[in-house]
């Protein structure tokens, strides 16, 4: 049924174009207090004392909170509980919060924050993972015993033998940078102490259940005593998990201790200073290939800078490990990955989750190999890429879905006329001022959490007596349009108009804990749950009305707003519902979608890592100015197999937005550290892509419905954001003959190029 296609409609869009949408900071409550975090100048230091007396005497101050005020656990975390709600024993990075000032106004709180004093003994700063791993390095977490957060590995075949069988071995080092999510809305939390003892929280966060766990742990209360209510989110991109949850926990603590509603709104400076980033990677990569272009072996070591706390570093680096060979079949693989504690800003989840770094490496390695062999890089890719029934480097046979790697690659090659244009690439030769290049990159990506964690999701469909429908699912609206996608899927399943369905913003006190809306799992998991709920509801309705329609329950179908029997009899959907109510039956269903089984052996690094995969390819044309080094993007094309497009306009938006963010990653985004202190803490100095940075973009949607997904749909958020950087690196190399092994890509002379603002004027 094609009823899902619509032109831009979203359940929340009218509110968003009129200013009526209420984001967390837009909520106001009587008697509201304001709180702000207090940081120190330290990067690594042992805390002797935190002095708050002077700040407490400032006008308007109601209370100042430090680690001493935490009744429950001050240490939280999704994997290792090392993340401090307030710094207690040490300062481990410059974003550690030593206190929170609660006052009658935000200005009063900010004024008083200046008078909170830290007395601490500075410790040596460990800012490079290599230093952190050196024998005798100062330990970031003494009780952890080392600066190693985690290790992962893949062992497949015999890498040594594979290298011996190679005619050519290529070996290169790559490096990537710290990247900020730069969601337009900073972290905000409002906590309200309810009369029944429950703390109710509205927060700019993307993981309500993790937020609830952190908050309950902090307050030392049961999960049921905290209710997180969904609020429109001004962007997340993976970045509103741990830090945003801790901000909510601090607001909750302030509300509990003052007995009044408390709001914390982060300034951009604080957000960039404290919130976790995308991991910088250092990768040593060796690839063995035969003269005919077959990859015989890969050996790689990956070191990820995890920053001061664990966050989800073990999960991020696991995906990097599983996908360390990109979408290529390699029989002999040895990969060793280490996540490392340093005194840098914490790193954690960011759109891509360990794949953008590895794709930057792998998609350049294949081009380097092809070049060395005098072979077309496209032919090299086609020879080695995964195909139907291929076995991945972790031993997973790709036989449960359409392996669309070749399909997306061909779609991009054709759309951009790649082979013809590649012949025009200047490769640094000639004398034209603007050197021309074209490049591409491709990836496959394991969908959802895979063997990282337990993966299931719930949805509730509650039909009212008049036939209108209330839907709620365990995935969170981060701005991507997940609520609308859920509504459209339900409308299709029940055969009713989408505008008769209201999505209820989820509350942790109503919907079962369905995990976090990350890992591009919203549509596949939430949509799966909605389809299951719809199926259950239809069975219930069918049992109830079958006799009325002179048929059996199995013969009842739903379409065109009616409940139908094969004999031609039918009643309207609302009549069927009214009939149920009058016969003491609720048209209500809880749907649960459980991700198919995955397996993982941590010792060998082998297993069915993900229950299904998506495939993507992106290409870009650009010029590089011979004198200034300025890179100008001319055109970009993407093709993604996402199973099925539930909301076409939003799918396109995900692809364009993913490419834009990835272009920033390639060319101008970098969190700069000045001896452990972030130097660029606002959007004037941290440069995200602007209109003029971007080329016209073309997105091709490929739909191979996935049998394991009840809705047929898979994933898109991250795949769209993980391959433009290597595509650009390859295009720059084709333009200039120069290869970039680190991000962002910048010619030294580019510092002479006038700033955009000057160009504008």
């Amino acid at each position, binding site marked *: 049924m094609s009823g899902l296609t619509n*032109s*831009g*409609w*979203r359940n*929340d*869009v*009218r*509110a*968003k*174009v*009129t*200013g*009526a*949408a*209420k*984001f967390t*900071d*837009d909520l*106001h409550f009587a008697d509201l207090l304001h709180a702000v975090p207090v940081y120190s100048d330290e990067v690594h230091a042992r805390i002797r004392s935190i002095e708050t007396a002077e700040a407490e005497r400032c006008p308007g101050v109601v209370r100042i909170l430090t680690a001493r005020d935490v009744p429950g656990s001050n240490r939280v975390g999704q994997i290792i509980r090392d993340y401090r709600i307030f710094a207690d024993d040490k300062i481990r990075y410059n974003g550690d919060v030593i206190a929170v000032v609660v006052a009658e106004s935000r200005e009063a709180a900010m004024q008083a924050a200046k008078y909170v004093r830290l007395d601490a003994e500075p410790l040596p700063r460990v800012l490079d993972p290599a230093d952190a791993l050196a024998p005798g390095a100062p330990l970031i977490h003494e009780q952890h015993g080392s600066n190693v957060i985690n290790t992962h590995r893949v062992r497949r075949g015999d890498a040594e033998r594979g290298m011996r069988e190679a005619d050519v071995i290529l070996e290169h080092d790559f490096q990537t940078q710290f990247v900020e*999510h*730069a*969601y*337009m*809305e*900073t972290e905000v939390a409002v906590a309200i102490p309810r009369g029944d003892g429950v703390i109710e929280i509205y927060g700019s966060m993307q993981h309500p259940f993790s937020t609830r766990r952190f908050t309950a742990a902090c307050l030392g209360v049961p999960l049921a005593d905290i209710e997180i209510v969904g609020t*429109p*989110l*001004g*962007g997340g*991109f993976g970045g509103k998990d741990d830090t945003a949850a801790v901000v909510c926990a601090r607001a909750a603590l302030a509300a509990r201790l003052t007995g009044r509603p408390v709001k914390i*709104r982060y*300034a*951009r400076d604080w957000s960039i200073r404290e919130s976790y980033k995308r991991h910088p990677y250092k990768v040593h990569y060796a690839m063995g290939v035969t003269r005919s272009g077959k990859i015989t072996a890969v050996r790689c070591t990956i070191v990820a800078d995890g920053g001061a706390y664990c966050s989800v570093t073990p999960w991020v680096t696991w995906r990097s490990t599983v996908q360390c060979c990109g979408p290529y079949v390699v029989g002999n693989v040895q990969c060793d990955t280490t996540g490392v504690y340093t005194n840098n800003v914490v790193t954690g989840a960011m759109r891509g989750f360990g794949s953008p770094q590895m794709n930057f490496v792998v998609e350049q390695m294949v081009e380097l190999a092809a070049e060395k062999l005098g072979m077309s890089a496209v032919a090299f890719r086609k020879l080695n890429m995964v195909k139907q029934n291929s076995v991945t480097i972790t031993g997973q046979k790709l036989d449960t879905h359409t392996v669309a790697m070749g399909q997306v690659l061909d779609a991009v090659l054709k759309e951009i006329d790649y082979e013809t244009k590649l012949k025009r690439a200047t490769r640094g030769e000639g004398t034209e001022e603007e050197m021309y290049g074209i490049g591409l990159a491709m990836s496959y990506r394991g969908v959802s959490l895979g063997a990282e964690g337990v993966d299931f999701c719930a949805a509730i469909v509650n039909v009212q007596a008049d036939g209108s429908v209330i839907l709620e699912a365990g995935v969170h609206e*981060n*701005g*991507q*349009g997940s609520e609308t996608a859920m509504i459209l899927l339900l409308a299709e399943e029940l055969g009713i108009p989408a505008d008769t369905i209201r999505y209820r913003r989820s509350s942790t006190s109503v919907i079962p804990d369905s995990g976090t809306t990350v890992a591009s799992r919203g549509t596949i998991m939430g949509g799966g749950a909605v389809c299951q709920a719809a199926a259950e509801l239809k069975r219930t309705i069918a049992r109830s009305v079958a006799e009325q329609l002179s048929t059996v329950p199995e013969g009842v179908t739903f379409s065109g707003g009616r409940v139908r029997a094969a004999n031609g009899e039918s009643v309207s959907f609302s009549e069927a519902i009214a009939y149920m109510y009058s016969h003491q039956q609720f048209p209500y269903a809880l749907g649960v979608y459980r991700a198919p089984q995955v397996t993982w052996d941590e010792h060998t690094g082998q297993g069915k890592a993900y229950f299904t995969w998506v495939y993507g390819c992106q290409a870009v044309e650009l010029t590089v100015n011979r004198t200034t080094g300025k890179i100008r993007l001319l055109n970009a094309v993407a093709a993604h197999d996402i199973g099925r497009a539930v909301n076409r*306009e*939003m799918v*396109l*938006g995900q692809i*364009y*937005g*993913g*490419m*834009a*963010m990835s272009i920033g990653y390639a060319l101008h985004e970098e969190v700069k550290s000045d001896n452990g202190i972030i130097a660029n803490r*606002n*959007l*004037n100095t941290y440069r*995200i*892509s*602007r*209109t*003029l940075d*971007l080329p*016209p*973009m073309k997105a091709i949607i490929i739909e191979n419905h996935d049998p394991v997904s009840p809705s047929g749909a898979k994933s898109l958020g991250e795949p769209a954001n993980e391959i433009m950087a290597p595509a650009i690196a390859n295009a720059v190399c084709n333009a200039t003959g120069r290869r970039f092994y680190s991000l962002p890509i910048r010619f030294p002379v580019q510092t002479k190029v006038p700033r*955009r603002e000057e160009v*504008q004027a």
Partner: protein
Amino acid sequence: MKFSVNGKTVFADETLAGKRLVDFLREDLGLTGTKNACDIGACGACTILINDEPMKICTRRLAEVEGAEILTIEGMARTDGTLHPLQEAFISAGAVQCGFCTPGMILTAHAFLLRHPNPTRDQIRRALYGNLCRCTGYQQIVDAVESVIPYYQEHALRSHSFNS
């Protein structure tokens, strides 16, 4: 102090002269469509129209706009709820994701189209250069603005004329 906000006369006490305009709109008038996102005029989320000129107001004080005509996102639609064609265009182009930049983006585009009712696509991109969006990659936003050009060509407008 006196000014017009979305066609209505608003009075404010002199003691508020030093208050940030964005805070006045959000806190005192409840017009929360205007957003705080960077506090230094770098992102455009707080853009409103002052006498038909787009202005990032997070660094502006109330006293600076005395006597001015102010248009915020709440004043774009008619009071009967009819959306402005530019708002409709944002919807049909799929130009809205998280929506946090949307009010500033719409108002910047609106001011631009009032002055330049016949722009090229490149001029539109240039006009939106100061407004940041992290979700959309801007393409559908530019599509939306481009699609509504005929409306602005037909109506040589001032910012409030849709409502009056």
